[in-house]
């Protein structure tokens, strides 16, 4: 490996690690008023969410976000899909949680989240609306939770793939980065063939397009498995578990964005199978 690239990579990795440490502290502070006792120095997410972070896809560069941070010290994120429509048990929105985490991790950056999620919307409808919202809101990044509604509504996976691919291409052409958030988790969907197919389709398209996809389903599946083996519990019942799951999601999103800023020259890592 060329020594200059190696040095650059090392510098970026150190920077990313430092930012992750900041994010970790931010995540812990945002999650709980108590000291961040459940956080680990090796991770950017809280201890309860750590097992799931292995299911996250590889880091991909977010060049437009990097430019926004370098030139304006401002980051504007347009949130689409179901996740932005969540409210925490303490009343704050998940978008607000991500905003807080990013502002702590990316010191001195003014982060604005604009939530334009419409619950129940299929990817094809969201894609049309997203173009309008990109024109109106001029974001640097789109955070798009997609796939669950299409899977539940039996949208053919090839049709879904085409929609996602076209939309990512459109966003790239318009210099807007994208972070995808995959399908929501429920144990009952582990055996649902179409749900699995849509999940895999999203992962495949994201890999082909080299964009970040946070594999929320897989992350929650692993967390649940760890928890069942007596690992760190999230919350007791399913509703609260889902709430805590979204708390982890907020951390994964913040982590992915933060790493994406520094991932410009990072070598591509194979996606977790």
């Amino acid at each position, binding site marked *: 490996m060329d020594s200059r690239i190696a040095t650059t990579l090392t510098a970026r990795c150190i920077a990313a690690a430092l930012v992750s440490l900041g994010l970790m502290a931010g995540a812990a502070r945002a999650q709980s008023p108590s000291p961040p006792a459940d956080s680990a120095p090796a991770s950017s997410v809280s201890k309860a969410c750590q097992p799931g972070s292995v299911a996250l896809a590889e880091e991909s560069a977010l060049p437009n976000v990097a430019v926004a941070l370098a030139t304006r010290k401002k980051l504007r994120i347009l949130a689409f899909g179901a996740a932005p*429509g969540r409210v925490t*048990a303490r009343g704050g929105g998940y978008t607000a949680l991500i905003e807080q985490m990013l502002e702590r991790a990316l010191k001195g950056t003014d982060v604005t989240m604009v939530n334009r999620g*419409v*619950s*129940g919307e299929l990817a094809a409808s969201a894609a049309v609306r997203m173009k309008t919202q990109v*024109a109106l809101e001029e974001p640097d990044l789109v955070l798009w939770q997609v796939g669950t509604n299409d899977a539940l509504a039996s949208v053919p996976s090839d049709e879904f793939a085409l929609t996602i691919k076209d939309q990512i291409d459109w966003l790239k052409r318009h210099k807007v980065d994208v972070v995808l958030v995959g399908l929501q*988790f429920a144990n*009952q969907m582990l055996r649902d063939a179409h749900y699995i197919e849509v999940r895999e389709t999203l992962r495949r398209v994201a890999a082909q397009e080299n964009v970040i996809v946070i594999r929320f389903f897989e992350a929650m599946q692993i967390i649940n498995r760890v928890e069942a083996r007596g690992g760190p519990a999230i919350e007791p019942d399913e*509703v609260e578990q889902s709430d805590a799951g979204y708390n982890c999601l907020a951390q994964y999103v913040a982590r992915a964005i933060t790493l994406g800023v520094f991932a410009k020259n990072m070598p591509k890592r194979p996606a977790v199978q």
Partner: protein
Amino acid sequence: MTRQPNAVDFWRGFALITIFIDHIPGLFYARYTLVNVSIADAADLFVFLAGWSIRLMAEGRAMSTRDLMLRLLARALELYAAQVLITMLAIAMLAGTAIKLSNPLLLEWHNAASVFNDPVPTHIGLAALTHQLGYFDILPLYVVLMLMAPLFALIDRVAANWLLPLSLGFYVIVLVFRLQLPTWPVEGTWFFNPLAWQVLLVLGFVMAKDNAGPGLWVRRHIVAIRTAAIPIVILGAFVVLLDWWPDPTDVPNPKLFFIVDKTFVTPIRLIQFLAVVAVFSLAFRYIRRAAEWPYLGAVVGSLIGMFAMLGRNSLYVFCVGSLLSLSAQIVRFDLRGTVGIDTAVVVLGIVIMALTAWIAESRQRSRPAASPQRS
């Protein structure tokens, strides 16, 4: 006794069935509704006809301005009660299905997550209409429009010529400054922005007046307007069918004047909708003539009767239709959407909607005179 089928009731019935189908995402038959060949859809038609109906109600019998305003406020209250009722039923349906199928995913569907997850502020939001379930967002728009309607009625009575210019002026301000109503506790904005959609209600209201103002002018020039509208309707169909949407990032500021957006019912959408109305304003007359044809006429006549019956009982049918759309989504989720399931869902849904209207009219059928037109 119920009133005879008329164009307003017929088209409102058409809009209700279309909304029912459009609110079942992924449904096979959803690819054959108005929205697949038109920029505007059944929601635009529904609101426009609501304005039209207010005119018929206001002029159907001599009503003082005060009585008219009170009547409109009472209607707003009735719509609000309906929205609260169907929202609670929808939440119960999602919760019941989640329990029955042991699948918590359903608790997160259609913006319901915060209802179960964070019920304290969300219940305030539900009551205040600032938290709306997915596909249960038309009635909140309608409630706010009905709260605005007394003002429109008052202006119409004291300075009729000012109503449309004032409404259009406010619409322009809303587009320029992107004024919206916020949602809470989930941060966002209303999917249907009443501040912009008021213009459609007012357009329906003024166009329904056939002896003065814009309504009279349009009727005098309807041939020319219809001729100009035909290419707009055709172009709109091509835009939708061939995905010829202009890139919204390429348009100048203020962007909302040049892009297609449902939330703000932007001018392109509005103009295309009015063109559709102009072109199809004659359609009911021809459809009714078709009812006189041998053989096929009986079917057409029955359909006219059913559509008009749905339209006459629009609130009941809309409420039941909204719940049926959700039921259909649940059925499709559980059994998987195939053409067979979709056909059964649509047929059964329309039958239940018709049955709802029939039951709602059962009292009126025994009365000697027709009831006045309702908004």
